[in-house]
């Protein structure tokens, strides 16, 4: 099919409680457009396809290299980063919607604070003694590093939560992203010293017991993080802890 223009349908919403509505835009075709550059083109002339003046679309983006996670949204119904969504590879009209598992701030922008709160709750850090010059860190094998690096590329973008049947506003479930971070910090020789603290959180309300094993998360992760492997490992760690706790009580 010969395409001389790019058509986009955007689901808009003026505020968290406002009713959503759709607007359609059309801009001249150019190769190499992605969803972000199309939105940029629209804000330089915010007029809908049927000639109505409107406001520039509100969205969140920063790096545009798929390392910051900011521009996550639903593109043609699939959750992904908008920056790597190349128009030439998308069916038109391209539909853009905000993620559904987080409160909408405005248009395509959502509030993912809950993800960062989960990282806090899970104590997802290596508790170092201080930032003073205390010499090199512990030795780590290249194999361990390679696995840790995969987990550590999580951008807190929320794709895995968007597709998770168990993640919603009626439960406290932390979801795959945070569970994988627990495995990451438990893997580090210093982080491991506080392993039990993290596991206790994961064994409590909103932890691993809420995981329904749907395995959607691993399919959509843009960084191909082995999320189900990590969840499996977390399951093993929590089980071991449970048994130990029973034996040593």
């Amino acid at each position, binding site marked *: 099919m010969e395409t001389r223009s790019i058509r986009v349908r955007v689901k808009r919403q003026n*505020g968290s409680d406002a009713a959503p509505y759709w607007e359609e835009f059309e801009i001249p075709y150019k190769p190499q457009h992605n969803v972000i*550059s199309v939105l940029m083109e629209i804000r330089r002339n915010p007029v809908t396809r049927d000639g109505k003046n409107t*406001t520039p679309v509100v969205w969140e983006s920063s790096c545009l290299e798929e390392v910051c996670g900011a521009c996550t949204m639903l593109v043609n119904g699939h959750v992904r980063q908008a*920056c790597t969504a190349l128009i030439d590879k998308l069916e038109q009209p391209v539909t853009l919607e905000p993620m559904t598992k987080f409160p909408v*701030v405005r248009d395509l922008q959502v509030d993912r604070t809950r993800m960062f709160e989960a990282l*806090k709750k899970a104590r997802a850090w290596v508790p*170092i003694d201080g930032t003073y010059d205390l010499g090199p860190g512990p030795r780590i094998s*290249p194999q361990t590093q390679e696995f840790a690096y995969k987990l550590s590329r999580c951008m807190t973008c929320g794709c895995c939560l968007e597709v998770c049947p168990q993640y919603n506003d009626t439960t406290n479930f932390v979801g795959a992203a945070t569970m994988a971070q627990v495995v990451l910090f438990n893997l580090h020789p210093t982080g491991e010293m506080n392993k039990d603290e993290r596991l206790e959180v994961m064994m409590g309300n909103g932890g691993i017991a809420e995981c329904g094993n749907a395995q959607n998360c691993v399919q959509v992760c843009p960084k191909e993080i082995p999320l189900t492997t990590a969840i499996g490992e977390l399951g093993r760690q929590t089980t071991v802890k449970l048994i130990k706790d029973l034996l040593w009580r």
Partner: protein
Amino acid sequence: MADQRMIVVGGGLAGLMTTIKIAEMGVPVDLFSVVPVKRSHSVCAQGGINAAVNWKGEGDTPLVHFDDTIYGGDFLANQPPVKAMCEAAPGIIFLLDRMGVTFNRTPEGLLDFRRFGGTKHHRTAFAGATTGQQLLYALDEQVRRYEAAGLVRKFEIWEFLSAILDGTGTCRGIVAMNQRTMEIQSFLGGGVMLATGGPGIVFGKSTNSMVNTGTAAGAVYQQGAFYANGEFIQVHPTAIPGEDKLRLISESVRGEGGRVWTVKDGKPWYFLEEMYPAYGNLVPRDIATRAIFKVVFEMNLGVNGEPMVYLDVTHIDPHTLERKLGGVLEIYEKFMGDDPKKVPMKIFPGMHYSMGGLWVDYNHMTNIPGLFASGEVDYQYHGANRLGANSLLSCIYSGQIAGPHMVRYGHGSAVNGAAEKAAELEKKRQEDTYTKLRKLNGKENVFVLAKELGEWMTANVTVIRDNDKLRATDNKLLELKERWGNIGLHDQSGWANQELSFIKQLWNMLELARVITLGALQRNESRGAHYKPAFPERDDANFLKTTKARWSSDGPELSYEDVDTSQIKPRPRKYDVDKTAA
């Protein structure tokens, strides 16, 4: 004061390191950022971070690192702070290692190091090809730990508008705007750190993130902070052009053996290797960028006649590529559709980094008492050209020394009536400004003006500079400032109004653009990234000096300050032969 709070603006590496240092001293911090801090621009850094640990037995030392940095910067950086940074570098890598950064490892389990431009040594520690992201995450985690402990309060999705200056011209806090409720508030603190990054968006398309407008630096410049060496803009030789931005292809690709070539007489021509036999593909960025411009525009040898050349890694073992460069090759494949392991990448230079920034003293305080700056927003460490993998280092180092200095400084300045009065006045001033902005109903579109700004700056104030074109650019900037007053605001909403915020940001960008352009116009020499064919030589007699721009209503007033060259005597900078010893 035990009850005193410090203010840090910016949640990239410099801001987070400053925050950690202050919190570690038991002093509470209010941390402001326009994005959730984990999404800051530091995530874009790919290749690595430098520290001369000599773990490859090449005779590397912090002094060699120091000399490479000064020489790479064409002697424009003040030498004592650069020396201190290079000496601190190994300790910084070890600290990051202890924080759990997933650095690549040797078979023995030690940190691995690779080569980067402008040096002969394996000095760059790295975590795949997403080192900046991994470093940022480590600092983000440490800050989250302090947040959980109640020492850090985060104000994410807040934008810095201005500094609160009291009657004596001392900075007592900030005025900031919540980017959702659009509410303007004042915050008092014992010291204010601006760690707000570079001004890449002034150039429209660059390798920078969308948040790097330079608006905060532009705002305090208009409040009297000096902006130094603004004309020194680094154009990275290897980026991939896009409609929305230029995406960086890391220098580490060449550090791991990548070769740059084009077709000449029907055969591959490895022009960097031929022109610069001593450093080859690992010449500093300004040199490589000019070589690509020469090949493409003077010799008309761009690939298929287009402005691009090849960056080739197809000769390197795929598993090694995956392990050491995975992240960056993945970006290329996602955007360009070709697998760089099989097909040479097509690249072209793109605006990347500002060596210039807010003038600071060696403790990172600007000329406004109480106002500090760290990271890319300061001007301190990179002279006329930054070496690859030194930016992550300077961000962390500058935050590390600035934090404790802020606390020491803050002990003498308690919150009092004068500060509260100044806060009220400044908040009112900002509210009045935004009331006016909301009434803008002219014909211009703010995003169109920004695009024009970027196109002019990229065409005339990047790689090759000509005085007539610089003058024309400044005239264009004056025209844009006038048209700015004729902007029409489409969005009247009082909620998450990005257009309204961008109108203010664009004004600050235009102010910085004039500093950059006029600084370049007045510097009649060639030094590092600043190249004027009409003045092809470095002129130490007249221009071994820091440019200092001071705001006035008639435009920037430029003055020149001597550079501290007390440690290494300036010598000619050449990369076709081995660098002579200091």
